[in-house]
């Protein structure tokens, strides 16, 4: 099971949980498993075509999947996957 780090704006979908463990060999499978466990969350990360939204980034370990194999990026059990949305607050 890989660990997915849930950013604060999306924790309302995970009952406040910061880390969620889900099964999957690729980022796509992980996000589907995440949606299965916490319905509604995937829509905030991916658009209607299934692609990761342009104001969200997904990192496997410390690498941005846009520079790897996008949603087909392989994930191993010991990987930490981070979902990092743009936030604007400065005040």
């Amino acid at each position: 099971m890989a660990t997915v780090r849930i950013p604060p704006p999306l924790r309302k979908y995970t009952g406040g949980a910061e880390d969620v463990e889900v099964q999957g060999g690729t980022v796509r499978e992980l996000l589907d498993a995440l949606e299965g466990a916490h319905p509604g969350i995937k829509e905030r990360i991916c658009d209607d075509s299934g692609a990761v939204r342009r104001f969200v980034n997904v990192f496997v370990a410390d690498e941005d999947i846009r520079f790897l194999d996008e949603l087909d990026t392989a994930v191993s059990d010991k990987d930490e996957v981070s979902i990092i949305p743009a936030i604007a607050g400065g005040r």
Partner: protein
Amino acid sequence: MATFNEVISRVKSEIQEIGVDETHARLDAAKGDAAKAPVIVDVRERDEYEQGFIGGAEWIPRGFLELKIEDVAPERDRPVILYCAGGVRSALAARSLVEMGYSDVSSMAGGFRAWKNKGLAFDRPRVLSPEQLKRYSRHIMLPEVGEEGQGKLLDAKVLFLGAGGLGSPSALYLAAAGVGTIGIVDDDVVDESNLQRQVIHNRERLGMPKAESARKTLQLLNSDVNVITHETRLDSSNIMEILSQYDMVVDGADNFPTRYLLNDAALKLGKPVVHASIFRFEGQVTTFLPDEGPCYRCLYPEPPPAGMAPSCQEAGVLGVLPGMIGTIQANEALKLILGVGKSLSGRFLVIDALGTNYRQLKLRKDPKCVVCSKPREEIELIDYEAFCSVDL
């Protein structure tokens, strides 16, 4: 018993002396190769040094030479050239460095007087006042800052977007550090709910424009700082004119339109941006260096539509979080001004105040980036429509 003249002629026969022309030629030959260049050390006293010195020289008065030489020449085989006013003190100093084990030490015969008489170029140091020497003494003690670095800070011009949660700590620390010109863009007024985290303001300032309140606080802290207030909201009509007056930007804006506009304008003008944003218990911070590293749009190509992204007051923020993140921004700005250390360019720090931990993620320059892959003159500024999501 030996007279002074006997001592100095014996010392000069034992050490290596080189002329002004050879010194000049050796410094010239090593230009662009800092590792091989000889270390040139000015051993004169302050009042002499202030009148002018050889460019690139380290200034260590004779009395401190043995104590400080290892800061500028840690390797004993590094060539060292010493000079004073006429070549006597530097000869005695050379003997002392030979005793310390330096294997390639020269004293410049004739000293700075001979250098100047030859008509060779020299620099004049920025002269700090006695008050400044005292105020910044803890900086000046650091070899990485010193009087030269403090001079860079006093000459630096930094623009702060927002005198809010992030701008408060970062502007306070940069003003304390002696950054000579601080610009503040903010069109808001101080409200009681700001004081939980915006430590640059106080109860007496309620209702006052934030930029003005920040100016008062910073000038009470350090009268060396010239604070310029911009009580306006940035848009495509004013950002170029405002940004062009500064060396870099510390971004503590509170909305997406300003952040994207800033990114594009800063790329157009070639200005570094120290970026941070905060939300509840989490902060993000990185540095965007034009041309060298990724930009904000390499990371997030487009702003989120209204309703998709959180922002604004409804989100809440732990009071100390902007302090933690804002001081990291201040540190980034100081390093950029001083040209020391390693910037956060290409690295994205995500700091979680609840768990007190942080993640460091790699940021890459996107060769297909919609903005930074373009030549500067082709970048067009966009005014995105302001929105404030309350869907949290």
